[in-house]
Every structure is written in C-alpha cells, then in structure tokens.
C-alpha cells in the first residue's frame, strides 16, 4: 500500500518540482544577479535590485498596488456581505441565487474586463447615453484611472467574497437568531451582535481569496488603467519583456509574494476551516 | 489438547499492538477452533476492534504472532488472507447492486462463473427478488444481510463481525441473533463476533473472550463465565452484580421476605421497578450499602419505605482477590 501511494504522488511531485519550484528558485537566484547587456543575467551578485524597490518611482507602484488591493477587498466585503445574507435567507431559491452569483465568474475574465472597457470609454455606452440625455456635453474620463481599475477588480472578484461568506452564514444555527429575538433583540441588532461576529471567519477567508489576485492583478490594470505600469503585476511584466531587466523583475516578484504571505498568514489562520 | 491445537483455525500468541498514544492490545493470546461461534466482548476502548483489525490484516502487530490455519500471517495483507469482515457500517459499495456487491470478492479472485453462488447466497440471507437493488434502497437490516452474504459467499476460514447489530433497533437485533447463530451452524464457518452487548454475547456464543484495557480477562463458554467469573471485572461486566462486603452476589440470588426466619440483613426498600417479566427492588442494607434484588413471579410487591429481610446462599457468593 505504501508503494501505491508513492507512485500516485510521483507525477504531482515531479510536476510541481520541475514546473513550479524550480522556476521560483530561478527567480530567487535572478533577483540577486545583475542585468546583462543583451537582456540576460550576469554574474555580479548584488542586492541592488531590492534596494531599488524603495526608489520613490517603484515604491509608489507597490504602494498603489497595496492600496488598490486593500480597497478592492474592502468594497467586496461591503458589497458581498448583504448579498450573502440575502441568499442565505431566500429559502428554496438559495441554490439558484448562488449559481447566479457564480455564473459570471465562470465566463471569461478577459471578456468581463473588456465589458467595462466597452462601457467606460469616451465613446463607450455610458458616455454615449449621458451625452444623448444631455447630462454632459463632452465625454467623462471614466477610463484609464485608478477608479476604473478598482471597478474592474471588484467586479471580477466579488463572487470570491460572496461564496465563503455565504458558507459561514449558512452554517449558523437558525436557533441563534431566534434566541436573540426571544431575548429582545430587533433584527438589526441581532445582525450586528450575532450574525456579523459569527461571519468573521468567512470574511477572513473571502478577503484572502480576493486580496491575492487583486494584489497580483495584471489584465485589469493593463486594460482599464492606461499607462504602462499601474500596478506591480504590470511592472513585473514590463521588466520581463520591454525593459528586459529580469533581475529587477524577479526582485519585484519576490516582494509581491512576500507582501502576500505577510498579510495572508494571519488571515488564513483566522478563517478556520472555511477555506 | 494436541488435537485441539491441530484444529485451531486461528491463534494469537502474545500479540501486542501499540499506537503512538497508547497500547491498544496488551499481550493477548487466543485460540479459536474451527466451526464454532466466538465472541469478543468488552466496553468501548478495550481493544476488541483493534484485535479484529489485526486478524483481518488492517493493522500489523507490534509484536507477537498471528497464525491462520497454522501459518504465520503477520505480514500478509488483508486481500490475501482467507478471512472476511462484516463492517459495522456494512460498507456496501454504493454504486453496485446487491448482486454485484456480493459478487465482488468472487470477481477479485478471478472466478468466472459464479452466478450460482451469488444466487445461493442471496437466498440464504432471504433477499431473493432484491438482487438488482442499490444499497441506498435497502433498509438497515437488509443492508446487513447483504454484507453477510458478500462475506460468506467467499467461504472464508473465519468470519469477523464488527458489532454488526449495533445500528439495528431492539426487536430486529433479537431476531438477527437467532438468524446469525443458525447461519453459523448451517455453514460451519468459524464466527468471531465483536460486541459490547453482553446479552448478545451470552446468547449467541459457544465461547466468549472478555477484554478489558487491552487484555483478555477470561475465556470460556457463556455459562462458565457467567457463573464462575475469573476476575472482579468479569463478574461486574456480565450481568449485574451486587457488592456486599467483599462478596459479590447476583441480584437474582437475593431473596426478600417481610418476616423471614433466616436472614443475612435487614434493608429498607428504596424503589420498586416493574419491568414486565421481573421486578427490580432497590434496597438499602443495614450496613449502608445499596443492593438490587431481581424477583420474578407474583411474590414481588414491595413498597418504598418498607423494612424487609434479605437472604442469600453462601454458594451464590463470589469473592475475588483485591
């Protein structure tokens, strides 16, 4: 029986070692090297790539990524909680609503990001309608700013927040709310003092699930943010393609992962077994 | 003795099983002869299930030997032992019909034409007509019979049963006891029945082994272990026991009278419980100890608070070293 288990785990182990671990180790190695003239990597090992991260130019990008990710997560929490609450209270239609929430997520992410492009452009639907209705005379710059990126991210990852929240709320004994009412709590108070605290693990789980992709976002800031390097993901991609500075790109990547793990570890512990 | 050993279908010699947290089986030795109904009796946690799993091959002994038909099987995996298990949860394969469940072991052996055997097995457990049903469509009792058929059709050397009646309600349990006993006698296969229900063990077995904290306290036929318990634990575990002074007396051995000429103690009646076929009278003896008397027949009508005379015969006393 031990033999069987060994062979069953072998393919996954080989694959992860070769196509996940080894590449990451190479990135770690590159982050300590210097950029070559023709875009490769060269010998002198250095910590310069990491000190460059504190350069105001790059620091700003990292900071912006952090802020956008945190704000997006916060919005998802604010918007997602009432949705999860609604679904858990919709009796027989629970499954239907649950599927309705997740269905958009399962269609192409690229398509959904493009949809906002279509809506927010100067010649997009929103501006066209506003101009036609006479509300504005010239198109509003809805696109190519942090707000548009935020919108795209919240839109993309909202279901990731709703699902774990729903799961946690569902697990609550219905008798708890009945007990609260029996003891004199009105619906809002019961929500605040019973449901909300008990939904905390779900909130942590959802935050983890939203924060990670937001922090490392590439497509959304690229299509909706304008400019070349709105967020860390764009910076990294840039360094590995046009700028051809692989060591620096590697350093940014590691910094990104470090930030993720630092913020996530405490959160993952508090999300109990929702994840 | 020599002949008995040659017929021994299972032998456990000084078997120990350690888990990281505790020692589950503590140096037990057991011999089972072919064709008899054995029970392994004990409270939960006493090591009886572990012992069963050691025999089936799901656990390996830390030390000691397990011999099946004289051959050492310590290192033989479960699928190569001629031992079959009826699991507590029945473990019927949910995606296979009754027929296919029963045929499973035969298929694994590579047998080609076994439909006759399968049909026979289905008939033996009285499930004819339900062969194409899925487990989800069966009742608890029916599932158990499929599990039995599935194991018996392989004609194992030993059939291991892990508390198979635990999930059934009382009436069904009592019916199944008689059926299982009859099945064992009919097929002649050695049964090893694990249970915590002493009534079951007493009713069905040719021989009982009582386990406590990983050790076997006593083995013997039901009448023997009941009337001549070897240890204090066995005495208290099988049936009920009153401990008066340093002697143990069974409730059915106590006699109560309002004005007895001979008596060992006076007592005050605390409660009188009517159980249908018997009455249990809870007494407070003059020594301050509590005792329960079991009375059958019309004599029993004592009321709370009455003062009575209690008597028993010295022959019914059981004493054990402390």
């Amino acid at each position, binding site marked *: 029986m031990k033999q*069987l288990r060994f062979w069953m785990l072998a393919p996954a182990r080989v694959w992860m070692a070769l196509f996940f671990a*080894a590449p990451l180790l190479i990135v770690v190695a590159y982050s300590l090297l210097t950029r070559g003239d023709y875009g490769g990597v060269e010998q002198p090992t250095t910590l310069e790539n990491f000190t460059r991260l504190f350069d105001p130019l790059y620091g700003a990008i990292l900071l912006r990524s952090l802020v956008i990710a945190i704000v997006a997560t916060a919005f998802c929490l604010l918007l997602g909680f009432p949705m999860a609450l609604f679904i858990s209270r919709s009796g027989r239609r629970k499954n239907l609503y649950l599927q309705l929430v997740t269905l958009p997520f399962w269609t*192409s992410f690229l398509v959904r990001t493009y949809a906002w492009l279509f809506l927010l452009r100067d010649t997009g639907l929103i501006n066209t309608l506003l101009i036609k209705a006479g509300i504005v005379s010239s198109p509003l710059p809805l696109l190519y700013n942090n707000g548009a990126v935020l919108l795209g991210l919240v839109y993309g990852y909202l279901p990731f927040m709703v699902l774990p929240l729903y799961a946690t709320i569902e697990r609550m004994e219905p008798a708890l709310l009945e007990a609260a009412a029996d003891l004199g709590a009105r619906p809002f108070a019961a929500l605040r003092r019973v449901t909300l605290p008990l939904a905390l693990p779900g909130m942590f789980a959802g935050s983890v699930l939203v924060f990670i992709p937001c922090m490392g976002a590439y497509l959304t800031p690229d299509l909706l943010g304008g400019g070349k390097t709105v967020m860390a993901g764009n910076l990294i991609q840039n360094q*590995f393609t046009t700028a051809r500075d692989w060591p620096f790109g590697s350093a940014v990547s590691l910094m990104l992962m470090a930030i993720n793990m630092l913020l996530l570890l405490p959160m993952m512990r508090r999300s109990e077994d929702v994840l | 003795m020599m002949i008995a050993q040659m017929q021994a279908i299972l032998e456990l010699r000084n078997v120990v099983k350690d888990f990281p947290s505790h020692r589950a089986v503590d140096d037990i030795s057991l011999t089972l002869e072919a064709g008899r109904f054995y029970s392994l009796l004990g409270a939960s946690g006493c090591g009886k299930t572990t012992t069963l799993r050691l025999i089936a091959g*799901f656990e390996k002994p830390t030390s000691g030997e397990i011999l099946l038909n004289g051959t050492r099987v310590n290192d033989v995996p479960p699928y190569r032992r001629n031992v079959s298990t009826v*699991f507590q949860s029945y473990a019927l394969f*949910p995606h296979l019909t009754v027929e296919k469940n029963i045929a499973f072991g035969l298929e694994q052996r590579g047998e080609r034409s076994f439909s006759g055997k399968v049909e026979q097995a289905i008939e033996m457990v009285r499930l004819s007509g339900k062969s194409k049903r899925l487990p989800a469509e069966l009742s608890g009792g029916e599932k158990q019979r499929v599990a039995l058929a599935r194991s018996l059709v392989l004609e194992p050397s030993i059939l291991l049963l892990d508390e198979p009646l635990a999930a059934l309600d009382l009436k069904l349990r009592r019916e199944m006891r008689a059926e299982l006993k009859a099945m064992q006698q009919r097929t002649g296969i050695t049964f090893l029945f694990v249970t915590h229900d002493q009534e079951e063990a007493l009713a069905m077995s040719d021989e009982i082994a009582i386990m406590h904290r990983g050790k076997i306290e006593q083995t013997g036929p039901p009448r023997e272990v009941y009337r001549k318990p070897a240890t204090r634990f066995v005495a208290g575990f099988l049936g009920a026991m009153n401990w008066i002074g340093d002697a143990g007396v069974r409730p059915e051995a106590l006699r109560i009278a309002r004005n007895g000429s001979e008596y060992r103690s006076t007592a005050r009646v605390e409660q009188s419980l009517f159980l249908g076929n018997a009455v249990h009278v809870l007494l407070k003896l003059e020594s301050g100890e509590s005792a329960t008397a079991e009375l059958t027949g019309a004599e029993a009508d004592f009321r709370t608070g009455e003062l009575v005379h209690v008597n028993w015969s010295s022959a019914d006393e059981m004493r054990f070293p402390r």
Partner: protein
Amino acid sequence: MKRGLSLYAAVAFAFLYVPLFVLVVFSFNQSRFTIWTGFSLDWYRAVFANTEMAEATWNSVVIAVTSSALSAVIGTLAAYGIWKRRSPLLTGSLYLSLVTPEIVTGISLLAFFQLVFRVVHLTLGLYTVVLAHVAFSIAYVAIVVTARLRTLDPSLEEAAMDLGATPWRAFWRVTLPALAPGIIAAALLALIVSFDDYVITSLVAGVDSETLPMVIYAIARRGANPTINAVSTLIVVGFGALIIISERVRQR
C-alpha cells in the same frame, strides 16, 4: 430588513449582469459605435471569417483539453495519495501555487524555459503552455477532489481489500467511481481556466502558438471593436453551457 435586502440584491445582480448583457446586445449592433442602428450578424460573420482567430481558438481548445485532462489525472492521484497519508511538502507547494500571483508564475516559467532551452535546444510552443497550465491547475483539481474524498466512507476501501482486492483495484473499482462527479467538475474548471488564461500563456507561448485570449487582447488593446463583442458572446455562451453541465454532473 428583508425588503431592503431584496432591493439591494436586485441592484447587485444587475451590477453583475448588465455589463455582460450590454456586451451581448451590442454584438448584434449594425454600427461599430455604441448607438444602436439596427440588428446585424455582421460581426459574427467577421469572427468566423477571421482565420487568425480560428487558428487561435483551435490552439486554445487543444491546450485546454490536454492540460485539463493531464491535471485531472495528476491532481486526482495527488489528492488521493495525500488523503491516505499526509505529504506536507507536496501540500505546501500546492497551496503556494494558489497563493502565487499569475504574473509571477508566468515569468518564473519563462525564465525556467529559457534556461532549459540553452541546453536542450527547443523553443517555446504549444507544449510549454500546456506544461504551465497543468502546473497551476493541479492545485485546483486536488482541492475539489480532496473535498469529495472527505465525504467518503473509509471502510469501503477496507471492505474491498478484505474481499480480495489489491489497494490499486480497491481505488479503481470503489473509490474512483465515487469520485467521478467531483473529478469531472474539477476538470471542467481546469478547462475553463486554461482556455481563458492570458497572463501566463502570453509569456510562455511560442511565436506560432497564439491563443484566443491573446488575439482578443491584441484587438482590445487597439480600441473597442464589435468583433470582440461577438467573440465574447460566443465565449460566454460556451462557458455558461459547460458550467451548467458541470453543475448537473456534480449534483449526482
């Protein structure tokens, strides 16, 4: 409060669906601008006439099917192996792969392949994309299958072995059939994620191995184009159908 919630939910669902709805509606618009001039299937015709898109779609399909099949097998075996007895190293690397941003996975693989190609003399192509996709899909599959494994009765496999089945046969004949719906759902998930992937694919695809998202991205970059609306609608319908099928299968 119930009415407030219902109202809010209505708005929230609208928020989720209106952008997609708009996209679909305007794929049938005659004009290329956002003023409705009439119903037309021109843009769909353009999609089907576009050979670059056709090739890219074919590539995407090949990659998606191959990588999802491979990751379904590898992921299921991994989940089962870990379920039998823990493997902290493998579990750790699987979790890490979930936490690693796509862009980082992508560049790390690019660096890896470039290094390997110095020795092996190959180039990027469809196969490198498949290798990459499997790497990040294994974790998804493993999670779904692990969740399913936890609902199984462990004594079923023991019963099978007790009846003479070797551990492999017990897995094959008893556990695998029970896992089947979960595996199919996970494979479908991997299929859709692979088909839709842009970031990692764009980094490790060869010159001749464009995928549909790459083509869409290139067009979108140049400005809005109703051809994309049409392609998007087709993708949404396609994925939507696959998901509904997956849910049906999973209910079993």
